[in-house]
């Protein structure tokens, strides 16, 4: 879903130049956000990955509002939904009486931050694009919430495991060439700018479109055919029916049915589970005969 939000942004095609992070309460050196007085007890999260992270660092009971899609982990479903995360309804947010609203760090949220600030609600804008952002976000949230030991331990463990995976990642030549397909018509593939690209690399394979700097991009079938991936990793659908269409049969991997479908929010945004994903994919890749 996260990927698809990104896709929607790409499709909209307008990149705002302003930095959404300006002026939002960021922690100062002592770790306490400007503008927020005491440990925050009521948080509304406008970002599903942040919702998940809040629960995982032990702050679940402080989450009083989540977005419609933020149902990870399962306990989050009990938290009242405030609707859509992008361009949300301020009324429903305010009805939850939040002391802090956390959002995904993106220019598209600039206006939401302005609107919340205008009604006096502090906001915290957290980047969540790459694997390293997980531990950074965990520590940040921990500080904002007045110091959560679980946040720090989670972040430390995560950093350790991630470093281990990164140093252990095999050299690239002759590794499995993977195409990650997010959407079929038009073909939208995961590019080098996405955390998924690094996950695939850490799992011992190679993203055929790693040269694209964006997290996702629309490409022509011909490009896919020319790069001839060994395996198609289809994100979010079980073998979309469109792959039965004649034009897709020009891709050898489709013709020979070398497809793996993966679902779940673990593929939608970086999270502590991302490292499990790396291991799971590594197993899958090892099992693939070329």
């Amino acid at each position, binding site marked *: 879903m996260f990927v698809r939000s990104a896709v929607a942004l790409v499709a909209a095609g307008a990149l705002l130049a302003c930095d959404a992070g300006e002026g939002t309460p960021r922690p100062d050196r002592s770790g306490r956000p400007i503008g927020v007085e005491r440990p925050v007890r009521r948080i509304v999260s406008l970002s599903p990955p942040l919702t998940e992270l809040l629960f995982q660092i032990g702050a679940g009971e402080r989450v009083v509002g989540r977005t419609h899609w933020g149902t990870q982990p399962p306990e989050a479903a009990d938290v009242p939904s405030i609707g859509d995360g992008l361009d949300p309804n301020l009324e429903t947010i305010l009805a939850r009486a939040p002391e802090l609203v956390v959002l995904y760090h993106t220019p598209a949220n600039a206006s939401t931050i302005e609107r919340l600030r205008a009604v006096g609600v502090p906001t915290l804008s957290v980047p969540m694009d790459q694997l390293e952002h997980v531990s950074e976000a965990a520590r940040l949230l921990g500080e904002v919430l007045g110091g959560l030991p679980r946040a720090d331990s989670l972040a430390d463990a995560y950093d350790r495991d991630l470093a281990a995976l990164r140093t252990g990642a095999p050299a690239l030549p002759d590794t499995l060439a993977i195409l990650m397909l997010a*959407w079929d018509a038009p073909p939208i593939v995961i590019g080098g700018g996405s955390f998924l690209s690094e996950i695939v690399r850490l799992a011992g394979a190679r993203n055929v479109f790693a040269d694209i700097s964006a997290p996702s991009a629309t490409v022509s*079938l011909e490009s896919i055919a020319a790069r001839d991936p060994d395996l198609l990793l289809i994100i979010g659908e079980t073998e*979309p*029916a469109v*792959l*039965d269409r004649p034009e897709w049969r020009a891709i*050898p991997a489709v013709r020979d049915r070398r497809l793996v479908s993966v679902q779940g929010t673990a593929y939608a945004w970086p999270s502590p589970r991302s490292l499990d994903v790396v291991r799971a994919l590594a197993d899958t890749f090892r099992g693939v005969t070329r």
Partner: protein
Amino acid sequence: MSRWLLLLGASAATLVLGVLVGPSGLDVASVLSGVLGTAEPSTVTIVRDLRLPRVLLAFLVGGSLGVTGAALQALVRNPLADPYLLGLSGGAGLGAVAAIALRVSFAWAIPLAALVGALAAVMLVYRLALVAGAGLDARVLLLGGVVVGAFAASVMGAIMAVAPAPEVRNALLWLLGSFGRASWPAVTLFAVYAIIPLAVVYRLARPLDLLTLGEEPAEFLGADLVRTRRTLYVAASLLTAVAVALSGLIGFVGLIVPHAARFAWSRLHQALLPATFLLGGSLMVLADAAARTAFAPLELPVGVVTALIGVPVFVVMIRRWAT
């Protein structure tokens, strides 16, 4: 006669160019051996199964959109008419979104749904126009098209807002016009299917000429208005609906190419329609080639390129027209 040979030659040249050009950076020799089947399998596949059908489909769709645009401009007596004006775009979008929201999934689900949506919208507009009398008044058609299109677009927006499937938002991407879905079955289907509507429109070349004079002068010069309008409406709708189903919404071609052809070729439809077909097809092939090569491996929506080409052409034409 020589003019036509020139035009046919130019069209053939663009077709060749379209096949030679592409994001995988094949050189001319590779493409040629790809066509002949003597290159390595991946090249042959790319050239024969991806590029050739794509270029052909682009040509056919571009030509059909041009012809439909020209015919509709005469039908509703409005130079700003384009093939989607009869509510087609809204209907196609609604069909596609509904199919995705309902999670209908088989290979041709979305194109079929778009086709059904487009045809439903067209029939609705027709029914609306009949309210004003069997004559299919041009103004009522125009208004009806706008109204039905807007209605469909709003229902589409509602579905997108409340549907449980986040993929529904991506239905819009499908609509952004692309020939990436081209394949030999699709090309053959469209080629065979398009012959009849195109022939029907061509047969109406003379009444179309007369229509440009106005309703009463046309009637007094022998045009059967009601039958002409009805037939034209049906043929244009059927043709455009299938084009949309196969390649999404691609603007400007149906609007601009008829004017360019009138300006540079002939205003009389017997010559105008074929010229529009060739020009529209060529333009579309060039636009598609640019769309898939300009930022390779990224692919632009074709509609973006046709607009980029179309707007300056339009400006030039308006300036010539005004003087």
